[in-house]
């Protein structure tokens, strides 16, 4: 009723039938251990990109003795080419919010926070209305569904418009009113998170999956996907195809299958995992979308034969030069150097030996940067230059020939 009109979305797991409050009811009839058991059984991994086993994360926080704990829903959705969290929040808020309540119950937290991407300000009102309804129905607030001693409420906090604030420790910094910069870890948020308290940070889709797992069981969830990547995934498909949009597909789907489903023709390359992901050429279209192969937090960008891959790459690198938090050396300056290298290529002034040095620099950035942003920003640089050599150099020994 409060939901925005649901499109006719099809899906076996996330978009399968679910009644509001179902997961909360079921969870409250179980013990924490039962829920953790189901979670472990499901082998759910985080949908925010890093793919950390959710059960492990929750178990650590549940075991912490601290009086105060937090559940944070990471709705910063900043990765270029992702918009699946938006769909969940607008059309399926019950899945996400129920998932948060379950998290609160399981780990023993009383406070939940939705860190909502600044650009999603427009959905704040509908989410707040929804929270209000939940409170009315005792799905939120004190003694939820009359369960003694279980209090949990959710507040919405607006993000500050930086990509890095989606990184969980930078997100926490931002919530505390500081500059959005990643923290040193260890300690991890599970032990020292928001205001020093043990904190679970989960992606919107992870929390939505949990509502299904709690109601339908880990075994059911595991039926979908591959052995290492269980369940299904929302993919945000954009670029050169007839039917861009959000698709629910099981993990393990081949890239070629995906291209067919979305009506992509003359595809030259697929960028899997957003700007920080990897660029896969035609020869790799038989790879599968899964944590163990082509991993993604959901972003799929399709480029057809008319695209200039160097320009594509340049776009990505410009994004990182701007979005790096500027804290650590490899990322702050490294991305600038990679971008300058691309500009040299465009001018036909980049020698192969310098290019190789830049690739080596990229490898250093991947291992020496402080957070995931700098660790993944060279991915597209390395993969595009490796996979589209002919196009970029046109065989002209060191000159960009197109």
């Amino acid at each position, binding site marked *: 009723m409060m939901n925005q009109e649901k499109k006719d979305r099809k899906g076996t797991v996330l978009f399968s039938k679910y009644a509001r409050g179902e997961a909360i009811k079921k969870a409250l009839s179980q013990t924490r251990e039962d829920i953790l058991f189901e979670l472990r059984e499901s082998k759910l991994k985080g949908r925010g990109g890093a793919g950390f086993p959710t059960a492990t994360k929750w178990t650590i926080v549940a075991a912490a003795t601290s*009086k*105060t704990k937090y559940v944070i829903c990471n709705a910063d959705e900043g990765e270029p080419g992702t918009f699946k969290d938006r769909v969940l929040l607008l059309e399926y808020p019950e899945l996400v919010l129920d998932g948060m309540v379950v998290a609160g119950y399981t780990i023993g937290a*009383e*406070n939940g926070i939705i860190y909502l991407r600044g650009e999603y300000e427009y959905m704040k009102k509908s989410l707040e209305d929804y929270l209000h309804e939940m409170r009315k129905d005792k799905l939120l607030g004190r003694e939820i569904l009359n369960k003694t001693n279980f209090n949990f409420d959710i507040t919405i906090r607006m993000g500050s418009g*930086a990509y*890095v604030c989606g990184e969980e*420790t930078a997100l926490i*910094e931002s919530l*505390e009113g*500081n*500059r*959005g*910069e*990643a*923290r*040193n870890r*260890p*300690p991890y948020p599970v*032990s*020292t998170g928001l*205001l*020093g*308290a043990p904190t679970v940070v989960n992606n919107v889709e992870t929390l939505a999956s949990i509502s299904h797992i709690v109601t339908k069981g880990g075994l059911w969830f595991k039926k979908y996907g591959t052995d290492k990547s269980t369940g299904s995934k929302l993919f945000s498909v954009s670029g050169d195809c007839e039917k861009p949009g959000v698709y629910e597909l099981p993990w393990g789907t081949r890239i070629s299958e995906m291209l067919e489903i979305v009506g992509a023709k003359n595809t030259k390359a697929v960028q899997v995992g957003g700007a920080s992901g990897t660029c896969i050429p035609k020869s790799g279209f038989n790879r599968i979308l899964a944590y163990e192969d082509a991993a993604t937090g959901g972003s799929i960008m399709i480029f057809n034969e008319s695209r200039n891959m160097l320009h594509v790459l340049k776009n990505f690198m410009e994004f*990182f*030069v*701007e*979005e*790096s*938090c*500027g*804290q*650590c*050396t*490899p990322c*702050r*300056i*490294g*991305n*600038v*150097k990679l971008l*300058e290298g691309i500009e040299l290529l465009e001018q036909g002034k980049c020698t192969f030996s310098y290019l190789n*040095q830049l690739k*080596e*620099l990229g490898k*250093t950035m*991947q*291992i*020496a*940067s*402080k957070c995931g942003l700098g*660790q993944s920003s060279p991915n597209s640089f390395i993969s595009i230059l490796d996979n589209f050599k002919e196009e970029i150099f046109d065989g002209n020994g060191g000159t960009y020939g197109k």
Partner: protein
Amino acid sequence: MATEELMESKNKLRAPVSQKPLKIEKPTDLTTIGGTVSVEINEKKVVVPLGTTILEACKQNGISIPTLCHHEDLCVAGVCRICVVEIEGMRTLQASCAFPITSPIKIKTSTPMVRKARRHIIDLMLSEHYGECYSCFRNGKCELQALAKEYGVDNLTFGHIDKPKYEIDNSSFSVVRDMNKCVLCKRCVRTCIDLQEVGVLEAIDRGSKTHISTFMNKPLADVICINCGQCINRCPTSALRANDPSDRIWAAIDDPKKHVVIQTAPSPRAAIGEEFGLPAGTSMTREMNTALRRIGFDKVFDTNFTADLTIIEEGTELITRLYKALVKKQDVALPQFTSCSPGWVKFLEHYYPEYIENLSTAKSPQQMFGALIKTFYSEKNGIDPADIISVAVMPCSAKKFECNRPEMHASGFKDVDFGLTTRELARMIKEAGINLPEMPKSDFDSPFGEASGAGLIFGATGGVMEAAIRSVVEFVLGKKTEDIFANANIIPLRGFEGIKYMEIPIGDHVGPVPAILKHLIQDWNWLKGATLKVAVAHGTANAKKIMDDIKTGGKFSECHFIEFMACPGGCLGGGGQPIPTTPEIRQKRAQAIYSEDESLEIRKSHDNPHVRRIYEEFLTEGPSGQLSHKLLHTHYVKRGSYIA
């Protein structure tokens, strides 16, 4: 939600600016016992206490790891990444300065991957680093340069910026900022926010545009910088330096019409040797005197002399305040705060302007000196004060600001023309071709050449209070300080505890009022049975703690006298002192000062015969008299924390 508790832990965390104290997680391996953990560093097994950082563990085992953003005085940053090491089983390298060991890991500190990453990082820094070492004042004393040398990074792989990006900010009398030299280690930010709790500097913008800036990018002179220079002392490069007057001093020296005098504070002599390769804690007092004369200063005086005078003036002021409060029942501002640290004074003017009355009106020794040079000294020697250039060598950058305060013209001239830091003086000495440690020893010039040990220990935190108590005890109790404190060393006031507190019960036996105070009071009976309560704080973060306690009527509001020094360790750790300044180095400088004090014959300000003489010959109305008020006392400005 226990908000207060959380805010407290948040304050402790203030990450990523600080992640101190690093929370220690439960060890993942149950074989670790007794709070230690056994790790492998470069295939060698070592045992370290749980929570030790990799950097610390390596250091303890003689393995050196390069660092840049790390500083012993500051909390963890983990931003430069130069200290990365490999840990078996981890995909990424880890910053050793920021990684607390909580499980039995295997560490490798010098693998090909590690070395390549370090070279890359240095090369990246150099690519954005404007200018050349040969025309840089940190040449030879620069941590970036040293790293480049150590790692053989010598071909500017990723280019070298050829135009400056930022304008140099030399608006401040004290600190010059050249962000073209900045490597964004954020030591200055952590110094200003965490160590000093002033909070003038912060990184702004992001990505490639990130840079250190002030509030609204205003010039440093227009923000609430207290000029302590602690940021300078921790900057690894030439991005921050003190505002150097040495060229103007050379010009004065070279001008035959000018009579150039220099006063030297207690701390520079305990540290300047470090600039000449001597170990910290080597006192250079009398070698420095000779060097200063050879450079061309006409007279070399000892600031400790006016430190003694400060004790008399400030002590008299305290006694007067106490008398008014206890006997006359007047409303006077207590506790009285010391005013010799210009960094602290400006801190109070900005952050606690409502307590301005508590500041002693006595000037700092530097400014007392200045006022006397261009009055008493010029008269006595028949020199036109207009021809005198008065220089002060100080451990401090705030002293440069202080001598430029408009109030500081008591003589009718600018009382002190230039404040010179220890570092700048060392450079002048070198420029004059002098090797300081080889200098023959010589004494100060009279009449301001003799000082007591009490003046000398002004250089260390607690020193002003110790000096004051050595005199007050004798004034009031009529006993020797030595009869109460062995060797006249007041140990509770020494050391580097952030805040020190001490009570001195007066008891029922008081002495006669000494001659020097007879014009103010008749007897001490009103102090019988009282307990004198004093406190000492160094570093403005600690000062803040005391001030907030006073604001809420806590224990420190009951104090009578409190010493505040803006810099950690007191002046010996001042912003003008040789770089580096670390806890260990401060300790050694303090030792140098205290042992010189012990070796002196006169160790109490009121025993200094020259101080007595100046009250007999010049300030004839005695301490707090009219002339002393005109020359030796000042007033302050309620600045507040917003500047238009």
